[in-house]
């Protein structure tokens, strides 16, 4: 019957976003009763190494919410062409259009709202699907009622949508919440964007949201202006349901700077609108030719993929714990526990697109074979690119491509540089004072040289069309000689020693030291 379209990203928009969104997602799912109903959440421009927002809060969502939700992930590289034109990191028009293009074609209605709304049918026996199924074609809005922050924060249980809806029915009367704020036509009500129900066919006919609106605000009013022209009327559903908003003004959101807020031009996008259509984007709205990843919360979850990958690569521990040390005299000891470290390495990659091509520069053969198994087991289909310069590694591993480093550099979308001892065995103790042998030194020298060159030339060697920097993951680069090497070139956070992994983007250091490092890295000096 209907597709709800929402958007956001994995950040902290406004106050207590995680709770508001969980309350809202669960409440929206609760009022769905048609098998075709869906919640389309466009996760826009979350960094690649983060899970999407719904994935991050999945444990606070009901089973029903997880079943009906489809997460469409727009990657930073897909947003970057807008980055210089806007101060915003999440774009509403683009997000909503991406979802509209990919919405269930069996659904008659599209409902636009936001991730902090609860919709309460006035007849408790009716679902939102029932309501939308019974009304004639048109364009519908409802007034928005505010819920004081302490009510939703202190009294809502985010996993109890039935209870929350019941509480709202009670509070609306006890606390006089229901105040309709009228506005001029075509807006009809204030805060109209929190409930706009339009026919899917109409949205396609008028070419979706106007994707020139990239400065924030008024996308809803522009839609109302255009649909009001197209349909003639803006109808109300106030007799059927009330819409409540989890107020969140304790902390201003990124797009709210009070009177200094930058916003889309009201004259251009509201008061001088002269047509329902946006012909300039008739063929391109919603990025029909762009591959947008779809993630589900009720199947093939990141945890399922992660654990499936590790189960392929490592056996369960047989001891209650293992030991290591960061005592100072062990600084030169490059041994590390592979089964313990591999989960932290996989953690760094599991949020990336499955088609990612990863360059793997490593010295330990067992690290390479284990990671290759885990990579495939996690469902990745992209190639593992291992430069020919890395000697002594297992041949003929599935999914691995060998070629000269210089040839592979422009295909890599993600890097792992592992600095272990090629001669470390599976049974020898870890961090017990082991020294490097000649083979270890030779392999590590190659790894270091390739790392420096990759990091120093990252901007010039990106795959064609890629505009965002590539991430570097270092394995066994904490509290040993490669700590400084890695962090000279990569802006990594401080991580716990036992994870053995650092990750970040190439540093942009314009100081003399930075320039020297870059020069030396580029020429492998």
């Amino acid at each position, binding site marked *: 019957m209907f597709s709800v379209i929402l958007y956001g990203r994995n950040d902290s928009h406004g106050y207590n976003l995680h709770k508001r969104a969980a309350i809202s997602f669960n409440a929206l799912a609760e009022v769905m009763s048609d098998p075709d109903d869906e919640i389309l959440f466009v996760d826009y421009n979350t960094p690649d190494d983060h899970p999407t927002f719904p994935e991050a809060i999945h444990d606070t969502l009901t089973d029903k919410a997880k079943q009906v939700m489809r997460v469409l992930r727009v990657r930073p590289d897909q947003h970057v062409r807008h980055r210089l034109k806007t101060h915003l990191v999440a774009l509403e028009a683009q997000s909503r259009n991406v979802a509209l293009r990919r919405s269930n074609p069996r659904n008659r209605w599209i409902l636009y709202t936001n991730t902090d709304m609860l919709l309460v049918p*006035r007849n408790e026996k009716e679902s939102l699907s029932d309501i939308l199924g019974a*009304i*004639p*074609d*048109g364009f519908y809005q409802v007034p928005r009622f505010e819920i004081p922050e302490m009510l939703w924060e202190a009294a809502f249980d985010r996993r109890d949508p039935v209870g929350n809806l019941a509480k709202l029915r009670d509070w609306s009367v006890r606390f006089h919440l229901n105040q*309709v704020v009228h506005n*001029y*036509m*075509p807006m009809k009500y204030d805060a109209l964007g929190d409930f706009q129900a339009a026919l899917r066919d109409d949205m396609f006919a008028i070419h979706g949201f106007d994707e020139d609106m990239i400065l924030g605000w008024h996308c809803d009013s522009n839609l109302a*202006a255009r649909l*009001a*022209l*197209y*349909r*003639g*009327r803006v*109808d*109300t559903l*106030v*007799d059927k349901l009330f819409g409540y908003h989890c107020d969140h003004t304790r902390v201003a959101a990124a797009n709210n700077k009070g009177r200094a807020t930058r916003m889309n031009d009201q*004259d251009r996008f*509201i*008061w*001088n*609108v*002269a*047509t*329902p259509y946006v012909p300039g984007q008739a063929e391109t709205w919603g990025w029909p030719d762009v591959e947008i990843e779809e993630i589900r919360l009720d199947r093939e979850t990141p945890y399922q993929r992660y654990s499936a990958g590790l189960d392929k690569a490592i056996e369960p521990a047989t001891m209650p714990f293992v030991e290591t040390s960061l005592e100072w005299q062990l600084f030169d000891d490059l041994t590390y526990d592979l089964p313990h470290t591999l989960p932290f390495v996989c953690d760094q990659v599991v949020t990336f697109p499955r088609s990612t091509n990863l360059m793997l520069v490593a010295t330990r053969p067992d690290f390479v074979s284990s990671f290759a198994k885990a990579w495939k087991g996690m469902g990745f289909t992209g190639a593992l690119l291992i430069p020919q310069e890395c000697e002594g590694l297992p041949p003929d591993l599935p999914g691995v491509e060998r070629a000269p480093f210089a040839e592979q550099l422009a295909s890599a979308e993600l890097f792992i540089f592992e600095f272990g001892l090629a001669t470390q065995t599976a049974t020898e103790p870890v961090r017990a004072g082991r020294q490097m042998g000649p083979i270890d030194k030779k392999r590590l020298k190659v790894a270091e040289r390739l790392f420096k060159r990759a990091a120093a030339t990252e901007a010039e060697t990106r795959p064609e069309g890629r505009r965002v920097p590539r991430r570097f993951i270092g394995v066994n680069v904490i509290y040993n000689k490669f700590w400084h090497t890695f962090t000279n070139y990569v802006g990594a956070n401080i991580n716990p020693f036992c994870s053995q992994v650092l990750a970040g983007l190439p540093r942009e250091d314009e100081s003399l030291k930075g320039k020297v490092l870059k020069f030396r890295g580029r020429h492998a000096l």
Partner: protein
Amino acid sequence: MADIGILRAAIAPVRRLWRRPTAVDVAPKAGDDQDARAHFRDGLAKRRGGNSAGALTAFERALALDSDFADAVMARAEILDGMGRSEEAHGEYERARRLWSEMPPGAADRRYIFRRQGYFAFEAESYDLVRTNVRSKILPQLAHGNACLARGRAAEALDSYERALKVNAKLPEVLALKGEALSALGRYQEAIEIFDGVLATHPKDGDTLNARGIARAALGRLAEANEDWRRQFDLLPQTSSAARACVAMRMANYSAAFNEFGLALAKEPGNPYWLLYRLTAARLAGAPAESVTLPADDHWPTLLLAFRTGQATEEALLNRANSPTRHAEARFQMGVLAVDGNPAAARRYWREVVDQGPPALIEFAAASNELARLGA
């Protein structure tokens, strides 16, 4: 016959100048339409002023004059709801929606404003308020004009569009709407000149091609009208089956109309006009008749279908033909029924459609093409 035919052909272009120049059919004024609107306006003003009881009375006065005035029904429902009389309001909300949805949708090949359903009294009043306060902007004038034009108040619409054009004289969308208003006022040549200008810069504007075709047909320039519709048809994507079907019907391309209305019916099986036109196209193209199940209602299109399928009489049809549009639709179907056995009668019926019917109707164009085919 030959002499009369030549004479008729000679004076046909001139006759059109003498026709009653209605291009937009309006619901028959019960004599109280303007009073009902006045009470409605009064109700809106009282409501905005916080006088709910006064507003309720005003809306009820409007409804006493026109019980199907859906905008007043909805406004009354909202007042009742706000007063706590929600049970009573519930039925009124539903009634308003039903009244709107039962209004005939316009032809699918026309510009968006003619495809909408509604009285647009609320919109006319609301945008009048907006344009008083949000000055020198296009949308309030445009929306006000659209609301007026859709309800047959073409002169007011023209005024609104001209005010919008004072803000930006070159907007093709507003110029095209001005052309529509001129056409609705019977000022076809002026409308054509406006459409010519729009199409010079936007040659693929299908809506304006359609409108210019209608204006040209109104002036008897049928070949040029057909050329516009042919171009519009070619521009319409395959997925716009309803629009393509309507254009084909205007051009009397009945085989195309038959196929496209079939596709349109698959998407909108409940649309009685698509079924009517498909049956009509089949009859005129000489295709075998299909058996149909009529909707179980007494709406006007159902009566037309009943007549089309031999289940209603001419008298029953004409008794309900209480507007120029309905009259033209009825006469057209009578012509379709007559054409095989009595072409002269068909010619008479279709002549009536062309002489008295609104030029915007599909039937007007189809009848014009039929008369040309019959050599009338």
